[in-house]
């Protein structure tokens, strides 16, 4: 084999096998249990306003864990607990309103919980997470889309998005001035535990 042909062959092998090898690596080694690290994570939300614009905010305090099942990705799990008292929209008066019994009633219901019931892979790095969301004593099934953003050295990062109807949790105050749909955009950074 001439040097030229060897070089071409090598390039071809890298081009074909490279991505597959990477995917295989990420799948076979990503398995395990992760604790969500608030430092690298964020839970942001956006509620559309009548006439345009939106009310945007984030939760500063939350805990959770992710279990990635090696053998059967569909058996993976996600559990998140959000402390609604930590809501932050950049406007103290709006935060106080959201924490009050008009919305979260954070004093009496200090936690919003999500427990996954199933994880369905939809692509090489994407999955649909279905689970039960509990807020203010009401539980309702919700669906989120997850995408694996990065994985390496014991840290896994997902971007998770989804739409939740707040009326299901007795938080429909302000509709239709503020949309009933809350759009979540989360970055969940897990550290292998």
């Amino acid at each position, binding site marked *: 084999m001439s040097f030229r042909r060897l070089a071409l062959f090598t390039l071809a092998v890298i081009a074909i096998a490279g991505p597959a090898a990477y995917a295989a690596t990420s799948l076979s080694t990503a398995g395990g249990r992760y604790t969500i690290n608030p430092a690298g994570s964020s839970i942001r939300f956006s509620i559309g306003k009548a*006439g345009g614009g939106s009310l945007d905010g984030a939760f500063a305090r939350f805990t959770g864990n992710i279990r990635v099942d090696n053998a059967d990705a569909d058996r993976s799990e996600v559990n998140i607990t959000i402390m609604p008292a930590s809501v932050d929209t950049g*406007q103290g008066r*709006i935060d106080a*309103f959201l924490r*009050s*019994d*008009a919305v979260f009633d954070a004093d009496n219901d200090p936690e919003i919980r999500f427990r996954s019931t199933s994880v369905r892979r939809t692509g090489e790095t994407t999955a649909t997470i279905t689970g039960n969301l509990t807020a203010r004593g009401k539980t309702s099934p919700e669906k989120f889309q997850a995408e694996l953003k990065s994985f390496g050295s014991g840290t896994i990062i997902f971007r998770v998005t989804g739409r939740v109807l707040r009326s299901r949790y007795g938080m429909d105050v302000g509709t239709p*001035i503020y949309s009933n749909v809350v759009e979540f955009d989360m970055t969940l950074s897990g550290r292998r535990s």
Partner: protein
Amino acid sequence: MAFLIRNTQTRYGWIAILLHWLIGLLFIGQIALGLAMVRVTSQRTAFELIQLHKSFGLLLLGLILLRLGWRLANVMPRLPAKTGLLERRTASAAHFALYALQLLLPLTGWALVSASVLEIPTMPFDLFVMPNLPVAVSDAGEAWWRAAHAYLAYAAVVLVAVHVLAALRHHFRLGDTVLIRMILPSRQRDDTEPE
């Protein structure tokens, strides 16, 4: 008697009467609602009452503009002939002030909502989005308009009370038709001509 639409020298027509009582009722209701909405403990109820107050305020603004137009396009029934000059001037000044308040209260309310950094959209009766007034958006601006709105409302409470007492005085003490003619335009004793 024909169905009296327009005012005459001695009587109010139905349009003026209807606008007077409709606006009077809504105006007093708005003051009560305004006082209540900032005092309720439930934040949810407060939010909903404030949106209702905004809706009725803009409805009132529309009605008041109609009323001012109608007022300018109609004659005013004369006061009873025996009314003194000072009383005539006082009545005229009080009515001018009442019109000014009817206009300024919804406008300052609209301005305070427009100046608020909370940027809560105004949706009268959930029907459509009302644009904001072009005022500077800041905490200080909102506070200024809020104070103006509140002080004008307190002034309105005083003036409405004076207005009601004056009407009752005309009816019970002076025994003239000043109150009655704002209730019914029907044919009645005319006390606006000198005896």
